[in-house]
């Protein structure tokens, strides 16, 4: 039975896009979908009468190996494969320069960390893909309307600097189902 190709989704064949840009120096990502439930208990019964879903929340985190702005120009020599000219800080995760102000639909992830712009910050999308042979990407999950809730920078002797971002989001679509809006018809109808 020779002829097997790498089949499963692993860290080595995964691709992460945040705000529609590839995070090529991402080292890990995790997300959790939590559905809170209540279990009403009444006198005269041992078991709960039902399990009632109350809420749906999405949280997660991812870590990026950081390198500085303009590192390629300022350090010189040959840069590591795939490094971005302008560095990979959160401020670079989207349209740059003049194009920055033109986009209304693209979430500005860094506004989530700027008190002066927090009121204008827009939710963004996190996409998880499996890379397939022939440069094909297969979507595994799409985390929608995410916002950064915490950014931890970490550096130590003997390690590369990393930044871990925690996020909360509204929905997660997976390759097998789409999560949908639940409040249809409740407001102003």
């Amino acid at each position: 039975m020779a002829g097997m190709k790498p089949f499963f989704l692993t860290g080595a064949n995964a691709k992460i896009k945040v705000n529609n840009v590839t995070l090529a120096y991402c080292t890990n990502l995790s997300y959790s979908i939590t559905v809170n439930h209540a279990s009403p208990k009444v006198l005269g019964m041992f078991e709960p009468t039902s399990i009632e879903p109350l809420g749906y929340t999405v949280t997660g985190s991812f870590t990026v190996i950081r390198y500085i702005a303009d590192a390629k120009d300022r350090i010189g020599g040959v840069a590591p494969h795939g490094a971005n000219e302008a560095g990979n800080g959160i401020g670079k995760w989207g349209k740059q320069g003049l194009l920055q102000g033109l986009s209304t639909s693209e979430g500005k992830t860094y506004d989530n960390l700027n008190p002066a712009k927090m009121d204008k910050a827009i939710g963004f999308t996190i996409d998880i893909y499996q890379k397939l042979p022939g440069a094909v990407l297969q979507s595994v999950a799409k985390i929608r309307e995410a916002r950064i809730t915490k950014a931890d920078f970490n550096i130590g002797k003997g390690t590369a600097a990393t930044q871990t971002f925690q996020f909360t989001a509204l929905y997660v679509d997976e390759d097998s189902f789409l999560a949908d809006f639940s409040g249809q018809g409740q407001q102003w109808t």
Partner: protein
Amino acid sequence: MAGKTPSFITGATAKIKIGALTMAYAQDVSYNTTVTTIPIETMGRYEVVSNEPVAYFVDGTLSIIRYTKEASAMNGTAANGNSVEQMANTTGSGGVAGAGFDPARMIASETFDLEIFQKLASTGTESVGKLRDCRFTRKGGAINKRGILVEQFSFNAILMDNDSAVQVGHSGDTDLAA
């Protein structure tokens, strides 16, 4: 069937270049390309479902018989000796491998390529393998009574081409590209 010439790669027909400079006093070189796999194991079966590749590493070792500039009159020796400080990256911006062992210069030290050739019966060489973007990680020397000084180097690299005609490539993406 008389008339055969030496065909195989042996220590006697091998040639090593670091940063395009010949290491004429190299004694041995070894390299390893390691592909780490993880077993996908599931309940209800004894064998693994698949061994999935998750990482690729290249490393190796090299030994060089050392001499100083005192030996410069010898056939095939370099004028300034053959310390790691003389291993210049002539295919790059001129950095020397020795900078990787100097804390004061480590921040600007550059990678180098290490290539192994087979010397042909006719003139010329044929590439056997090229280890790209090497860095020395260890240097050691030993000398004793009745011995010569041999320095051992350990290195790691990013990629290894099996011969110069077949280049392996990077698997990663461009950071922050749409």
